[in-house]
């Protein structure tokens, strides 16, 4: 019954907020962060209680092919932790940060719907329900990107809306074909039917359609046009959620659940994922080196880090899968931490251009400390989490026989370290160059510091507690990927 609360609790508190907002304008700060904390606590208890099991909840009491089911297994438990962790931290951060914007209560309503949609995607055992939750997430993020209603925000939002809706229609066409061939909308029933009757050419037509839609949501290289505009112009807690969680859940979860679980993964599909990931790693790294705007640099680095995860999935070996899953966890923490740091720098100095900033390390110690832990974790310095996930991916590549690709990935790790040291030097360490009012800058308010410290500690904790995390969170997620098409018989057995 606990799974049911994940999508429902934020929706209930969002609806209460709509009613509450009528009476007192600036309400909802503590209601929404309380809901986000309860969700995070529930996600952590799920990790401890689940350990490898699968929970299925039949809604309305109907069986599998008739009604809609909620399915929770190792893979979605990993995503639940990621979503609710970043959701809680960005909610805590936005209490102070959103004072600059008008209509704060509406921000909380949309942010709660965003978390509800993400939780719904991860738990839905029905392919059309997965699409409806993807639309809730899409609409909430369109409105949140255009929250500060100015020329840049509206333009980034309209560009993301057009590409997002086109991607959704392609996914919908794929779902229609899958329904017509298998006769049901339930993922487990569909996967068992396909494993019995085998793949016919209609499914081979549906797979590229779905891949096109998911690649567009994941901003892989040919379709990345919307990401470098959407993430920098959004308010900071939204861009932390967007690049930390939304581009992962909408695309990678869909790819693994539908391609690995239902239609079965062919080697050519894995090759496509591998090389698309490789291209977006290098594209993201090179264009990130040229950027001068802090958040735009982070957006490009998101493209390259998503490439790592695609690469990990594309290797096809359990080691590569473990690296990809662990990198999802790592990337969510250090990328949202970096966006929060960028927001804190912009909050106190009002300046986003790196070349003009400088010497903030002594003025803003907490921000500097957390940005250090984020850049070490991203660069892959041993005690931090990032090192282990990249190591696993590279080992997976070598095991799968992609030697040249493995060397290229090692080279790309150097690039990622390069553009993050550039940030450290420009923003925090060197003396300010131009007319920069250094003495007037003071540290960000307490709540922003608390959220930054939480994420910084978790970044370090992921590295130190790596063996336990590997066993508790990553192993069950990898088990879902490796046993692929047996997903149907596993779920229907319950």
């Amino acid at each position, binding site marked *: 019954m606990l799974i049911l609360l994940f999508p429902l609790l934020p929706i209930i508190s969002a609806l209460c907020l709509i009613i509450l907002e009528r009476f007192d304008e600036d309400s909802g700060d503590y209601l929404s962060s309380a809901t986000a904390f309860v969700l995070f606590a529930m996600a952590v208890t799920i990790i401890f209680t689940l350990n490898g099991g699968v929970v299925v909840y039949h809604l309305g009491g109907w069986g599998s092919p008739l009604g809609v089911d909620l399915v929770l297994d190792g893979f979605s438990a990993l995503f639940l932790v990621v979503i609710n962790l970043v959701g809680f931290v960005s909610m805590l951060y936005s209490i102070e940060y959103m004072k600059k914007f008008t209509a704060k209560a509406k921000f909380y309503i949309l942010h709660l719907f965003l978390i509800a949609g993400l939780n719904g995607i991860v738990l839905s055992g029905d392919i*059309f329900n997965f699409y*409806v939750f993807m*639309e809730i997430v899409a*609409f909430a993020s*369109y*409105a949140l990107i*255009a929250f500060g*209603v*100015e*020329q*840049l925000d*509206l*333009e*980034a*939002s*309209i*560009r993301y*809306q*057009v590409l997002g*809706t*086109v991607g*959704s*229609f392609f996914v*919908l*066409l794929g779902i*229609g074909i899958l*329904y*017509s061939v298998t006769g049901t*909308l339930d993922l487990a029933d569909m996967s068992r039917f396909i494993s019995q009757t085998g793949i016919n050419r209609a499914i081979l037509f549906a797979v590229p359609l779905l891949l096109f839609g998911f690649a567009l949501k994941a901003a892989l290289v040919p379709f990345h*046009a919307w990401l*470098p*505009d959407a993430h920098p112009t959004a308010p900071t807690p939204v861009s932390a959620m967007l690049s930390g969680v939304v581009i992962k859940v909408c695309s990678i979860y869909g790819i693994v659940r539908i391609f690995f679980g239902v239609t079965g993964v062919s080697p050519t599909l894995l090759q496509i994922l591998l090389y698309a990931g490789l291209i977006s790693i290098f594209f993201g790294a090179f264009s990130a080196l040229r950027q001068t705007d802090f958040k735009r640099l982070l957006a490009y680095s998101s493209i390259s880090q998503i490439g790592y995860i695609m690469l990990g999935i594309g290797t096809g070996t359990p080691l590569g899968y473990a690296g990809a899953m662990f990198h999802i966890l790592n990337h969510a923490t250090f990328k949202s931490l970096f966006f929060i740091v960028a927001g804190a720098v912009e909050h106190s100095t009002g300046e986003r251009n790196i070349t003009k900033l400088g010497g903030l390390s002594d003025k803003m110690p907490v921000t500097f400390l957390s940005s250090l832990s984020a850049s070490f974790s991203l660069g892959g310095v041993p005690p931090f989490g990032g090192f282990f996930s990249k190591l696993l991916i590279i080992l997976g590549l070598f095991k799968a026989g992609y030697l040249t690709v493995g060397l290229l990935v090692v080279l790309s790790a150097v690039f990622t370290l390069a553009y993050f040291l550039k940030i450290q030097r420009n923003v925090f360490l060197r003396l300010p160059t131009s007319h920069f009012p250094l003495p007037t800058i003071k540290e960000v308010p307490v709540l922003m510091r608390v959220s930054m410290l939480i994420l910084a500690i978790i970044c370090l904790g992921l590295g130190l507690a790596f063996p336990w995390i590997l066993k508790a969170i990553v192993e069950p997620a990898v088990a879902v990927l490796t046993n692929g098409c047996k997903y149907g018989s596993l779920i229907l057995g319950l």
Partner: protein
Amino acid sequence: MSILIYLFSILLFLIGLYCIVSKENLLKIVIGIKIMGYGVSLFFILLGWRRDSSAPIIIKDMAQNFVDPLPQALIPAIMVISLAATILMLATCVRLYEKYGTFDISKIKELKG
């Protein structure tokens, strides 16, 4: 015959895609998205049609073979989603028109790529 009928919905889908890709006017892009939504809902209904069978409403003493009701249950969902997408885009277009004075994409291109 069955391929021809399905091709109509795929053609409608492609016309919408063409309108989005090549037109410069924002409202034409909204119209293109609406046409893509129509194409997909037509495709779902074509999937669910059954030869010589009646509409899925049980009437007291009528024959019992029905058209496939499940795609028909999904269509209101798809239409509401494409409606919501167009209305959100129209709202953003109205605000963009107020800021830029025109719907022409080439003039709105303030964000570099």
